[in-house]
C-alpha cells in the first residue's frame, strides 16, 4: 500500500499516523484506568457518600457499563458528538466531543480549549528561548572550545540541569518580581488581549524552563558541531580564510541542526503534558496541572482528552520537525 509520494503523501501518511497514535493513546488510557486504583463514583460523590448514593452517581456517569461500551460511547462522541442533560435541559456536545468531566460536568473540549493557549504560549516561548540559549551556548562553546569561556558556559548550563525548576523559578521570581520589581508576578494574560502583557508575564516561566532545558541543547549542539568541524568541507572554507567564528556559526551549526530539531520537537510535544511544576509555580492555568488533578481524581474523560491533545501536538511537532530537516538537509527525503 502506498499513500503516494511528495508532500501530499507525507501529509496523508502523517494524518494516518496521528489518527493511529491518538487511537492507541485513548485505548491505553482506558486500559490503565480500568486496572488502576481509585473508585471513580466514590471520588466524584465524595468520601462520605453512602453506597446507595455512590451507586446513583455510577449510574449517572454510566460507570457500570462494560469497558468496551464506555469506550465505544467515547468514540461515538468523538465522531458524531452526543447529547447530555444538565438536569434542566438537554444540550448537544458537538463532534469531536470528548465527553464531560466526571467531576464538574464541563465539556472536556471546552476545558481543553481554554487551556491549550496557556500551555501553548508557555511551550512555544520556552522553546524559542531554550533554543536560543541552548544552541547559542552550544555554538559559543564549540567556537571557544577548550577555553575558559567554554568551561564557564558548560558549568552554568549544567548547573541548570542539576537545580530543581522550583528553585530556579522561585529565586527568579523573588529577585526579579519581588526585590527588583522589574516584572509583575506572573499571571496569564491571553495573547489576543494584550500581546505585550502576555509576553511580559510569561517571561519568567520561559526563562526558568529555558535555563533547565538549555543544557541538553547546548551540549548536543556543541558535540554535533565538533563532529562537523572534523569534516572535509569545513577544511575548504578554512582554506579560504573564513574565520573560525563563521565556520562554527554557519557551516558547523547547520550540521548540528538535525538532532536539535528532533529533540525540540519531542520536548515541545511533552511540554504540552508536562510543564506541571512551572505551571503551578507561576500560577498558569495550563494543561499540566489540570492533567495531574484529573489523574488524581480519576476523571477519565478529562485525562483522555488531555492526553489526546498532548499526543496531537507530539505528532504535529514531529511532522514539523521532519519537514524542517528535510529543508535543512536536502539529502533527506520526507518519509
Amino acid at each position, binding site marked *: 500500500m502506498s499513500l503516494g509520494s511528495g508532500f501530499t503523501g507525507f501529509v496523508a501518511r502523517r494524518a494516518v499516523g496521528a489518527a493511529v497514535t491518538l487511537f492507541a493513546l485513548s485505548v491505553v488510557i482506558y486500559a490503565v484506568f480500568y486496572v488502576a486504583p481509585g473508585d471513580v463514583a466514590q471520588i466524584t460523590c465524595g468520601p462520605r457518600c453512602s453506597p446507595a448514593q455512590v451507586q446513583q452517581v455510577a449510574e449517572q456517569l454510566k460507570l457500570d457499563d462494560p469497558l468496551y461500551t464506555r469506550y465505544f460511547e467515547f468514540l461515538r462522541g468523538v465522531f458524531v458528538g452526543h447529547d447530555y442533560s444538565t438536569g434542566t435541559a438537554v444540550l448537544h456536545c458537538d463532534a469531536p466531543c470528548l465527553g464531560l468531566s466526571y467531576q464538574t460536568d464541563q465539556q472536556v473540549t471546552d476545558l481543553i480549549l481554554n487551556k491549550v493557549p496557556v500551555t501553548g504560549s508557555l511551550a512555544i516561548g520556552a522553546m524559542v528561548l531554550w533554543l536560543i540559549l541552548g544552541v547559542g551556548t552550544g555554538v559559543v562553546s564549540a567556537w571557544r572550545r577548550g577555553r575558559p569561556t567554554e568551561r564557564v558556559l558548560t558549568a552554568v548550563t549544567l548547573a541548570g540541569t542539576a537545580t530543581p525548576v522550583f528553585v530556579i523559578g522561585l529565586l527568579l521570581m523573588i529577585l526579579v518580581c519581588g526585590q527588583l520589581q522589574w516584572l509583575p508576578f506572573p499571571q496569564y494574560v491571553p495573547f489576543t488581549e494584550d500581546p505585550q502583557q502576555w509576553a511580559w508575564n510569561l517571561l519568567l516561566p520561559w526563562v526558568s524552563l529555558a535555563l533547565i532545558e538549555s543544557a541538553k541543547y547546548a551540549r548536543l549542539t556543541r558535540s554535533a558541531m565538533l563532529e562537523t568541524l572534523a569534516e572535509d568541507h569545513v577544511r575548504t572554507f578554512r582554506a579560504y*580564510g573564513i574565520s573560525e567564528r563563521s565556520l562554527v556559526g554557519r557551516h558547523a551549526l547547520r550540521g548540528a541542526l538535525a538532532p536539535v530539531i528532533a529533540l525540540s520537537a519531542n520536548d515541545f510535544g511533552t511540554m504540552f503534558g508536562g510543564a506541571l511544576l512551572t505551571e503551578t509555580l507561576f500560577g498558569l492555568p495550563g494543561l499540566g496541572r489540570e492533567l495531574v488533578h484529573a489523574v488524581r481524581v480519576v476523571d477519565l474523560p478529562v485525562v483522555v482528552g488531555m492526553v489526546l491533545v498532548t499526543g496531537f501536538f507530539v505528532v504535529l511537532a514531529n511532522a514539523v520537525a521532519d519537514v524542517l530537516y528535510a529543508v535543512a538537509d536536502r539529502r533527506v527525503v520526507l518519509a
Partner: protein
Amino acid sequence: MSLDDHLVHVDGLSVDFGDVRAVDEVSFTLARGAALALVGESGSGKSTVASALLGLHRDTGARVTGAVRVGGVDVTGATDRELRRLRGGVAAMVFQDPLSSLDPYYAVGDQIAEVYRHHSGASRRAARARAVDVLGRVGIADAARRARSRPHEFSGGMRQRALIAMALACEPDLLVADEPTTALDVTVQAQILDLLHVLRAETGMGLLLVTHDVGVAAGSVDDVLVMRHGRVVERGGVTDVLAAPQEAYTKQLLSAVPRVDAVRDERSGELGDVVVEAKGLRREFGRGKGAFVAVDDVSLTVRRGETLGVVGESGSGKTTLGRMLVGLLEPTAGRLRHAGAEQRGTGAVPGVQMVFQDPVSSLNPRRSVGESIADPLRARGDRDEAAIRARVRDLMERVGLDPAHYDRYPHEFSGGQRQRVGIARALAAEPRLIVCDEPVSALDVTTQAQVTALLAELQRELGLALVFVAHDLAVVRQVSDRVAVMRRGRIVEYGSVDEVYDSPRDPYTKDLLAAVPALDPALAAERRAARLSRPPSAPEELAVA
C-alpha cells in the same frame, strides 16, 4: 632572484605526521605568472606540499619545518589573522577530494558567494552574481539555476568545477590546484586548462598544479617537479623533463603512460553468461517542473569476464547509471536483471560491488582501512581472523598499499591511496560484478597500470564482469571490451572498444577523442591555440552541448 620577487618560496620544507615523514626537504620557487607542476607517485607528498603553502597543517598535529613564503607572507610564522588574509585572497586552493569538499547543507552558489564576499566585501547580490558567473566559466550549464543546487545534486565533475570556480572567484595571485581535473572528461578538462591558461596570461596568476597526469602537465605548465617518497627527484622545464628525463623514475613514469591509440591485445573471445542487463533505464531527480532526467532510456548488458567502459561528459549520468546497476538507486523506469533475476526497488544485490567516485565519503572515517577492506569478507561470513588479515594484506599489497598500514585511518592516507582502499574492498569478496566509478582518476600512471593489470588478472581468473566508468579515454581503451559513450543521460554510442575508438560515428565521440591531451608540450600548445582561436562562445557551447 631575491626572495620577494618570487610568489612562492619554499626552502627545505619537511612535514612529519608522527613517525611518517611525508615531505622531506623540498625546496622550490615559483615566480608570478609562472606555472609549476608537481607530478609523481601516489603518496609521494604532493598534496602535503600543496597544503603547506596555505599553512593548512597548522593545528593539525603535523610537524612542519623549513621555510615557506607565499606572496611575501612567512606562512610558518604568520599570525592566524595574517594567515586568513593569505588564504583565498593571495593563494587559493582546489582540493584533491572535490566531492567531499563542499558543504552539503548549502547551495553551491551560496558557498562560492560566501567565499567571494569574505575577500571582496561585495554585496550579497553582487557575490551571488559573481558565483553564477564563475560557475558559467567553468562550464556548468544553466549556471544561474544550478547555483541553487546542493552539492549532492551535482555530479562529481561538476563539484570539482564548482571548487575551481570558488578558487577563481577570489582572483588569487596563486592558484594551488591539487589534481583539479580528475573527475572531468577530456573535453571539459581541456576547457578548464584553457581557462587557467588564459587567466595566467591575463592576470599574472601563478599556478601550482599537482597532477598525476603527465598529459595535463604537458599542456599547462612551464616547469615540472617530480616527487617520490617525499623528495624531489627531478626538476626542470616541462619540455626538457618530458622529452629527455634524467632520472630512472621519471623515465619509468613516462613509459607507463597509456595511449589512446595503443591497440589493445585481444582477449579470449568466448563470452560468458549475462551478469547484468538493463533495459530502458531512466532516472529522474526532483519532480514536477524541477524534474531533471539524469539517465534516459539506457539499455546495456554486461557478461561474465567482460569489461564495459563508460565514458562521457561530466554530468552525463555515469554515476547515476552505475548506482542503479548495483541497486543503490531506484530507477524511475526501466528494467534491471541481475544474473537473470528481476531486480526490484533498491537493495544490495549479492555479489555486486562498487568502487565509489568519492573515496572520502565511501570510507568510514572511524574504521581502519584494513577493517574497511575486510568488510565484505566478514559480511559473507568469514570468521578466521588470521585468514582475513592475510587476505586483506595481500589485497593491499596488490593495489600498491603498504600492508603495514592496516590499522591506519582513512584521513591518514593520500587521495590516491584512499582510492585504492576502495578498490581493494570491492575486490575482497570476489564479486561477480564491480561497477568502478572513476577508480583510477587519482592514480599516477605506474600505480594505475598496476591496478588495471590486477583487474584484468582477476577478470581472467574469476570471470569478473566490470563496468568501468572513467574520463581517461586511454585507460578505458586499455581495459574495456566494449564501450558506451554517454551524453546528457543517453548512450550516444555503444560498441566494441576498437570500433568506437577507431571509427567513431557520433560527433560527440569524435570531439572527445580529439580532446585527449597530448604528451608533447609543443603539440599541446598548438592545440590550445587552435581551440582558443575559435569564436569566444565556443567553450561555453562545448560545455553546454
